[in-house]
């Protein structure tokens, strides 16, 4: 019996080893953690449709994704924040070709808070959020918060600010938004996956921030929309650039992406976009694909997947609570795929 099992195991191992010889191909990618559940679903579904192609994805973080794709240790990278000019230059110097950004889905950050006695969803103006996170608005009954919530009785207690302690795309989106709506934030703090926070406590991960907010009375923090939705947390509305207070939802996030002007390289921040229904603290997340791929088969596999991701793939996003791409972005990306060429 055990001998039989050993034999089967060895045979299976040999079969796995031998597979690539029979036209099996695998692609590897690495990067952002935020879209990981979506990507693993996509790669799994795509593998079912194309059994000869396997796509492995390691969610090691956006920074790691950019580094690995620049080094050429993976076939594609993934990031929550677009690559900077310096990083693009470093990529070009190293690989001798450019790198393309392909938006895949959208995410958003929402303000979560815990104020004893306040059960309704609060309205936040951009000035209020920037003021709170700069440490200038220190009480809940500050006029800047109160004027947006005339019906709510706010306490005069000190505000406890909670932010992410780990570097994250979630933080990037939040501070990118604050940089756009507050010139003081822009000059004093700026934007990045980790920043030098003027005030507040750091929680590790969405769950760390949510846990800290839940445990501290009179606190405010920010978490990923998907995390808030899955954990049935209530969150505040934020005033967008056209003056409407908008609650984050898949529709209002997609509306934010539709309102933003899309450059040819897709490296765009869509925080604080125009549009009446747009939720202002949203972002794309991107796949990073080198323009030139040495192996023609690999190139075909990647472009095939990208086409599928923009078509049937987009229909799977809402089940996992990711906002799908607007149609205009999809058709623009379809055209950009042809830029990926095999080495001549």
């Amino acid at each position, binding site marked *: 019996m055990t001998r039989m099992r050993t034999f089967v195991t060895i045979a299976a191992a040999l079969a796995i080893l031998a597979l690539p010889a029979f036209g099996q191909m695998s692609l590897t990618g690495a990067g952002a953690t935020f879209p990981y559940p979506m990507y693993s679903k996509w790669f799994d579904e795509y593998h079912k449709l194309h059994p000869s192609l396997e796509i492995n994805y390691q969610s*090691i*973080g*956006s*920074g*790691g994704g*950019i*580094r690995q794709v620049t080094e050429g240790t993976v076939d594609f990278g993934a990031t929550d924040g677009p690559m*900077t000019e*310096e*990083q693009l230059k470093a990529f070009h110097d190293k690989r001798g070709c450019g790198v393309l950004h392909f938006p895949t889905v959208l995410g958003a950050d929402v303000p979560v808070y815990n104020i004893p006695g306040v059960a309704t969803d609060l309205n936040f103006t951009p000035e209020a959020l920037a003021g709170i996170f700069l440490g200038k608005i220190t009480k809940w009954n500050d006029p800047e918060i109160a004027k947006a919530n005339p019906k709510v009785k706010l306490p005069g207690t*000190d505000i*406890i600010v909670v932010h992410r*302690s*780990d*570097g*994250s*795309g979630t933080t990037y989106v939040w501070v990118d938004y604050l940089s756009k709506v507050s010139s003081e934030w822009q000059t004093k*703090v*700026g*934007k*990045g*996956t*980790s*920043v*030098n*926070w003027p005030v*507040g*406590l*750091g*929680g*590790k991960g969405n769950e*760390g921030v949510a*846990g*800290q907010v839940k*445990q*501290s009375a009179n606190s405010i923090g920010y978490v990923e929309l998907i995390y808030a939705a899955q954990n049935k947390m209530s969150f505040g509305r934020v005033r967008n650039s056209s003056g409407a207070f908008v609650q984050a939802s898949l529709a209002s996030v997609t509306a934010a992406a539709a309102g933003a002007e899309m450059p040819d390289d897709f490296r765009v921040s869509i925080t604080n976009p125009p549009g009446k229904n747009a939720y202002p603290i949203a972002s794309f997340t991107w796949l990073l694909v080198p323009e030139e791929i040495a192996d023609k088969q690999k190139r075909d596999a990647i472009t095939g997947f990208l086409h599928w991701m923009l078509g049937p793939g987009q229909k799977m996003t809402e089940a996992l609570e990711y906002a799908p791409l607007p149609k205009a972005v999809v058709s623009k990306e379809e055209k950009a795929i042809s830029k990926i060429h095999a080495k001549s």
Partner: protein
Amino acid sequence: MSAASTALPRSRVSALADKLRAGDQLAYALTLVCAASIFLVTCLLVYQLWLGSALSRHKFGWNFILTSTWDPVQENFGAVPFMFGTVVTSLLSLLISVPIGLGAAIFLAEMALPRISDLLTFLIELLAAVPSVIYGLLGRFLLVPILESAVVPAIKGVLGFLPIFSGTFYGVSLFSASVVLSVMIVPFIISVSREVLLAVPVDQREAALSLGATKWETTWQVVVPFAKRGIFGSIFLALARALGETMAVTMVVGNTPKVQTSLLAPGYSIAAVIANEFTEATSDLHISALVELGLVLFAITIIINGLARLLILTTGARVAK
């Protein structure tokens, strides 16, 4: 060798001796390789940290360990708040855990019935094997609320006038991290100290008792001093764990890179910031600064260990006089 061919019995003896000697040499070589590999790994580690931190070392020089701004956006890095947090939480956790650990070890080795002692020791060794993230979660959701509702108000009531207990308590703080750390390291102290105390020869105890010492006098004045080196060893082990602990600390320390006098204020530690920022660090200088933090942690570990050893040497000399 020529002498061996003439006298047979003697050659047999010498061959055996050769063999034994060869065995000795083999053992010598094997153990040497083991010891050297540890040394080699340590050297490689330092070399790699040194290499990886070159960018940051050249840019900031000594200012890295003298300034306290940590700004990944402006790429301005100073390690002081992290060094402060690491040293304070580790030392405070020792302050809490050493008396408790030593007391427990003395009870288990000298006072308790052997069966109870073995059972308790088994449980304590189980505690040492609990993953640190579990301690972090327990700390976050069990200990911090207790500290917040009962312990800290009591401390503030009595000692609130001291600057180290001033300010608002948010639950997460240097103090909370120290308490969680002390729970984590106390099993090491108990388990190793108990073994060391048990290893003290019975003659020592009998001699003291026969001179008319009480049980406690025997324990405190004869057994414990005899086992002092081993007990210090257990404390070093505990300290090393406290200095490098990452997950449990980051979950309860507040992750705020500021130097504040109050122990009730949030802080940060070196290991925690490395774990938090490394994956999403995109600029070379940021990564290099994080690697340099690793180097600094290594240096702190060596310095604290060195100081502790110096302490033993000097106190040991005083006792000898």
